[in-house]
């Protein structure tokens, strides 16, 4: 019974997804109503989760469903982020589909389903549960990426993503099999027990963890598995790109942080590898982002860089007293800014996403000062300029890296964030320092501006009052 209470938000989301699926059959179904409904479900799930967080001061049941799932402060935070991402994605979809007409009711149902997968993934305490959650999430996301069936860009994006996703999923499966072979169980606690008495460097364990990490690196677009991200983000619709960049990353990072934190042995054997992957991810991402002319691709590439920062936090994980607060905070800060960015893009992108390059945003500050100001806030937060949430996130990550003795990684992280200023500033320069060439008339619903402003306020609110910690 108590198990169910802590899963109440998940149940709500799942029910919402199923109800919307049923609603889609209804002859009078309208996608606009569906979007409002899914907004409602996300909001209710968010507040239910908040209620669970607030009322249950200490997680009553760290292990539920026979150790298959676990609830902790960290997973709660991750779930909150996922629900919030879902809510704001629906908000921006609501605007986006006023000018782009390919949404159906199922779109929102799939969004809820993928959120279910994400929440399960972040709670997973067992590798096969994680695999199934990963697939629930991924299958729904695949369809969402390719939702615009008329566009061949979108079809190519889904196909590329599907093939690579399934490919990496097979690695996850094989990795699980190897760990199962080594430790005799796929449950995190049993693996940790096994690791306490055996070295982590047995071929099966090491190979299994290696395969798992390949999948994870693919999903979070870390070096050297980052190449797909530009095309897939570019090919999918703006709200979905935002959802993928934030909620999906949150869930995957929650899962891998839980996994790596389960045993110091395992973490130690990966620390050097993670170090270099973090470095290459940051700098490789920066190099790619500098070369982009398209705002969406630039944000996609900057997402790679942010994965790099999160990898720094993974390197600095201390399995003795792991709280994940740093990772959760950074994910929240990053999600708010990125979602805001995509909400603004959905709002301003226009029909068929015609405004996508840096040049398309020239003079935005004159025509739409509010939109330009919010975009500037999001960009500065991503760049980590105080007093935004992004700065605090980066600050915590650097602090955790230095307290874990990784001073070099901290310095490299800051250097990378300064390089990243280069492309964030480019967009600000376009928006503010150039004269307008067009009038930016958009048929946005009033919800769009509200959501961007709300997210911009959240950037400062999270930055100045970091409650997650």
């Amino acid at each position, binding site marked *: 019974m108590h198990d169910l209470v802590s899963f109440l938000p998940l149940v709500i989301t799942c029910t919402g997804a199923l109800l919307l699926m049923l609603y889609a059959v209804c002859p009078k179904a309208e996608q606009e109503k569906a979007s409002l409904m899914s907004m409602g479900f996300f909001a209710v799930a968010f507040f239910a989760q908040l209620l669970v967080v607030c009322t249950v001061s200490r997680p009553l049941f760290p292990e539920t469903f026979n150790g298959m799932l676990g609830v902790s402060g960290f997973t709660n935070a991750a779930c909150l982020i996922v629900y919030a991402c879902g809510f704001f994605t629906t908000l921006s979809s609501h605007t986006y589909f006023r000018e782009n007409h390919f949404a159906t009711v199922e779109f929102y149902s799939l969004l809820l389903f993928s959120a279910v997968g994400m929440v399960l993934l972040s709670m997973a305490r067992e590798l096969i549960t994680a695999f199934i959650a990963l697939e629930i999430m991924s299958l729904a996301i695949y369809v969402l990426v390719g939702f615009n069936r008329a566009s061949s860009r979108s079809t190519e994006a889904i196909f590329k993503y599907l093939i690579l996703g399934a490919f990496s999923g097979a690695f996850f499966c094989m990795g699980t099999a190897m760990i199962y072979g080594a430790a005799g169980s796929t449950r995190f606690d049993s693996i940790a027990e096994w690791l306490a008495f055996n070295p982590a460097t047995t071929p099966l364990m090491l190979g299994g963890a290696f395969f798992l990490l390949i999948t994870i690196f693919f999903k979070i677009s870390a070096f050297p598995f980052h190449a797909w991200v530009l095309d897939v983000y570019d090919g999918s619709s703006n709200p979905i790109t935002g959802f993928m960049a934030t909620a999906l990353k949150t869930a995957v990072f929650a899962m891998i942080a839980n996994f790596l934190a389960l045993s110091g042995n395992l973490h130690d054997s990966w620390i050097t590898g993670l170090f270099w992957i973090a470095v290459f991810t940051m700098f490789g991402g920066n190099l790619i982002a500098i070369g982009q002319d398209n705002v969406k691709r630039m944000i996609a590439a900057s997402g790679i860089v942010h994965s790099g920062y999160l990898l720094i936090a993974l390197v600095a994980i201390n399995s003795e007293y792991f709280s994940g*607060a740093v990772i959760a905070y950074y994910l929240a800060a990053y999600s708010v800014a990125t979602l805001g960015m995509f909400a603004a893009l959905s709002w301003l992108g226009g029909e068929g996403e015609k405004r996508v390059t840096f040049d398309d945003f020239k003079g935005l500050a004159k025509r739409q*000062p509010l939109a330009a100001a919010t975009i500037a806030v999001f960009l*500065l937060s991503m760049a980590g*300029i*105080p*007093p935004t949430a992004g*700065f*605090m996130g980066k*600050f*915590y990550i*650097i*602090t955790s890296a*230095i*307290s874990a003795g990784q*001073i070099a990684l*901290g*310095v490299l992280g*800051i*250097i990378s964030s*300064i390089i990243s*200023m*280069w492309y964030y*500033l480019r967009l600000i*320069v376009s928006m*503010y*320092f150039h004269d307008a060439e067009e009038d930016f008339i958009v048929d946005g619903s009033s919800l769009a501006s509200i959501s961007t402003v709300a997210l911009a306020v959240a950037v400062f609110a999270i930055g100045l009052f*970091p409650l997650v*910690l």
Partner: protein
Amino acid sequence: MDQLLLNSGFPILSVLIFLPMLGALVLLLIKDEENCRWTALAFTTVVALLSLTLLSGFDSTTARFQFVEMRPWIEAFNINYTVGVDGISILLLLLTTLIMPFCVLVSWTYIKKRVRAFMICMLIMETAMIGVFVALDFVLFYVMWEAMLIPMYLLIGIWGGPRRIYASVKFFLYTLAGSVLLLVAIIWLYMQNGYSFFIPDMMWQSYSTSAQMFLFLAFFLAFAIKVPMFPFHTWLPAAHVEAPAAGSVILASLLLKMGAYGFLRFALPITPEATAIMMPWVLWLSIIGIIYGGFTALAQSDMKKLIAYSSVGHMGFITLGIFTLNLDGIEGAVLQMINHGVTTGALFLCIGMIYERTHSRDIESATGIGKYMPVYITFFTFFSLAAFAFPGTNGFVGEFMIIAGTFKYSLSQGNFPWLALASIPGAVLAAAYMLRMLQRKIWGREHNPDNSWLKEHDLNIREIITLAPFLLFVLWVGLAPKPFLNIMHSSVSALVQNFATCQAKAVAIAGTILN
């Protein structure tokens, strides 16, 4: 906690920090441009007047931090919102609050597009600058220090001259790059000091020499770029030339002071040993800056560029004074920080006023205007004289003290005073470039451009009100610098004394190791 003194229950510093912020929010609601100007002026003036009340409560006999406020901010990391002023920062705080209203005044007609956004930028800028000078928590300091960049970046980028985008991006990236290591240094100090970001706790600790060297390097990179010291100065002329008049004033009068303030507040007290080791290098870098700035200024035909390079020279004097590490030198440097803020600010205002009329910053196009704009040229002459330290002006007092401090330093080391001698050509160069500009502007040459139309356009009453207080200050400090020196005296002498004790301790420890 003995460094703290609470002599007022009223949170005056917080009010000073957040009042401009409130002003920016109020401006969001105002549509009319004229009202925007008046609101911004009202807020900056109120802040200026409020800041003056600090003086009455300020106890200049102690080196402790005063008007301290301490509130928990982010408890998980033990970050507090701690503010307070001592004898050094109160002067810079007053400089900031007092200069801002004039920046608003000078932009009255200069800024024609997007007035509201401009004023909002100015007010946010003021919040951040006050925050930097009063922060006693390192995270708060860093937040304010970086937050300052954005409004300044926008000021240059939106309202600047033709190459504003290049200048603004260069300014932004340069100064941001400077603080790379600063953040790491801050976090390292936090770990070392029992997980506290409280700045006074970090001072005068005995960190190992190698750690101090690393910290000093981090501080030096951040502050030397901001000052800017010689090899790091290239962002300054670009930013100055392209910035609007008010932007130039803020840049020259206030932003540059942050670097010097950083040296005084952090580099000296936190890393005394490393400072002692690096001192000769920094001193010679300062000398190079003085000479280099002087020669480059001599070659400029753009008035703004000329003043920008002269700033490099003047800031060289200030770092020279700071790193002599004796009472005269540091007091002179702090006084010169204020002086430079006032005179260079005033010079930029003057050039802005001319630019508004002729739309050119070239000396050639302003030759011979002395005949037509007598009021203007009178002001300009006084400020120029102050800029090259003519006796009787404020510049003289500051520069004299710095050079005296440099002499003392050399003599105390038992050396021939090469340093002080080397700085003299800098002072002569300053006279050369300033007089060159002054001569052109007053009398001009054989073929002056026809500027007779300016006869009708001498300074108006708003501009005179803007410049008069600067002139008053130039003469006041020039003739009676005592009150200013009194305010900072205890803080500076405590700094020097602590530094000497720390040195003695280090020498003693080194001695025991050798024995």
